């Protein structure tokens, strides 16, 4: 068992009188893909926002590389090596893949060029990264607005790993995608793990995405850890039962 790179221990978070997370623990290991599943309102997004530094937990520990850290904003977490890709992707449709990958962090030339963007160097770097992720089929010079949903999702993910983080958090990467586009994203997620990254994926798509592309499944229910499965020895039905609360579901069915 590899040591986890990012761990949450007994994390709780409330918004006013609503308890979003109570005593939740989670480990992410290098080279492993963990799925975070749960019904609407189970606390998945809150948990990701705690990990990405958007929310501070009320109690509990945030451990990174074995040491406890106190993170207060998303930039700090990103600098630490934890990147988050949100559902809306935050891409600019009127820019091409290279410009989107480097947005806000452009490589520029010397002052007498007026800090001209060094397009050739950026494009070469982008090409290397996309090749490493086996995303060679993505055009570097088309506007991303003209691309398919799967390609856009993959560009957003590629952007998150351009600066070599250790952990990537993906919020519903397949929600708006067709089956084949989701498969492309699944390929990429496994590729990331094979490069030694720890990956967390929120997904509703248990049968077509989670079982095929993840190593472990963590189930949240009503803000608590409900179950944990190895993706290899579980059926979709078992996962769904854990999500909705197996006994109640059986009772209602009976």
């Amino acid at each position, binding site marked *: 068992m590899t040591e986890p790179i990012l761990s949450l221990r007994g994390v709780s978070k409330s918004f006013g009188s609503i308890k979003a997370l109570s005593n939740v623990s989670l480990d992410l290991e290098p080279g492993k893909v963990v799925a975070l599943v749960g019904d609407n309102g189970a606390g998945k997004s809150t948990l990701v926002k705690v990990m990405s530094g958007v929310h501070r937990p009320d109690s509990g520990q945030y451990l990174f590389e074995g040491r406890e850290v106190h993170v207060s904003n998303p930039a700090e977490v990103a600098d630490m090596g934890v990147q988050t890709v949100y559902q809306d992707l*935050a891409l*600019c449709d009127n820019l091409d893949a290279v410009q989107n990958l480097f*947005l806000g962090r452009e490589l520029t030339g010397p002052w007498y060029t007026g800090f001209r963007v060094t397009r050739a*160097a950026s494009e070469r770097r982008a090409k290397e990264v996309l090749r490493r992720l086996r995303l060679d089929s993505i055009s570097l010079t088309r*506007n991303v607005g003209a691309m398919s949903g799967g390609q856009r999702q993959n560009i957003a993910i590629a952007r998150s790993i351009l600066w070599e983080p250790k952990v990537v958090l993906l919020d519903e990467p397949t929600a708006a995608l067709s089956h084949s586009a989701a498969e492309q994203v699944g390929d990429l997620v496994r590729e990331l793990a094979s490069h030694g990254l720890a990956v967390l994926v929120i997904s509703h798509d248990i049968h077509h995405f989670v079982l095929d592309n993840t190593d472990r499944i963590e189930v949240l229910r009503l803000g608590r850890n409900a179950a944990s499965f190895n993706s290899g020895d579980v059926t979709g039905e078992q996962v769904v039962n854990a999500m909705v609360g197996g006994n109640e579901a059986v009772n209602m069915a009976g």
Partner: protein
Amino acid sequence: MTDSLHPPMSAATPKRTLTERLGNELSFVPVAIGLVALFFFFATQSDVFLTSRNLSNLMVQSTVTGIIALGLVFVLLTGEIDLSVAAISGVASVFMAKIVMDFGLPVPLAILAAVALGGLVGALSGRWITLIGVPSFVVTLGVGLVLNGIQLLLLPRTGRYNLMNSGVDKLAATHVTGVLAWGLILGAIAIFALVLGSTWRARQRAGLDASFHGGVLLPVVVVAAFLIGMLMFLENQRGLPMPVILFLALLGIMSYITSETRFGTYLYAIGNNAEAARRAGIKVDRIKIIAFAIAGSMAAFGGILSASRSLGVSVSSGGGVGGGALLLESIAAAVIGGVSLFGGRGMVVGALFGALIIATVSNGLNLMGVANEARLIVTGLLLIIAVSIDRGIEKLARPGS
């Protein structure tokens, strides 16, 4: 594509279609074609139209609108609008005239001060818009009216400053000829070739696909043909008019800023998806404020040029109250030139073509002896057609069409 884990070769990346290119770096092509068509049409209608004297006039006519539109492009790219540009041009020109005539400041200093004033007004509007989050068209409409009032306050009782023999008049009256003119034109071509050439060489060194013919030779030949043709044509007349030189120089600088620098990329990014830009660490507010400042200073400079051409400033400088035709034509020039009012699309060079189209329609119809009302109708229709073509191209460039 489903089993694309091991694509055979990267050569399979799809080429960009013509519609995509028309939506980006070739966005000015439809309007350039339209301009050529207009030239043909008016050449058949009037013997005077294609004379160097008339074309010299036409170009000078387009410079004031063109320079104001040039600055406006920066604001439009971020998805905002500045309805005070005409008023800024008016108040800045009156301010310049006042400090020259009443206080005896040297003309170059007065021009610099007026341009700085325009930039300051733009920056303050931008600050207010980003701080409070009010729509820019409302704020700048208000600012425009305020400036109209200040313009009236700055004017003397006579309502006019006469700038004949003040030194300001030299700005528009100067013509550059001979060796100096050729030096300017060839220097501009050399710089353009250097910029494109360095891009090409860097790409080649980095092992990326780089086309010398399409990326360097063709654009340089087109630009060189345009500039040298213009020079040879105008040499018959009195040489290169200073307003035309200034407009083209500003156009070159602004094109470089928007298409080559980090700041330029941010303008486009903000215009398309401000939230994404913000999350990428871009200081959205600051970029917008700079864009408004550029629009303000360009507008001020346009106003100074206009004052210099008309040998004076008055109540009607800057298009009069509300901006009048000057404001509408400046916005129309940018939009006809392919700049989207919704932000994120268009090029600075569009301001040149848009301003030339408006000046051509006005000039050509005048020569045909058509009345003013027809001119307004034609310009209005051209604006509608231009926006519709632009919209069509944008729709075609979307996926699944």
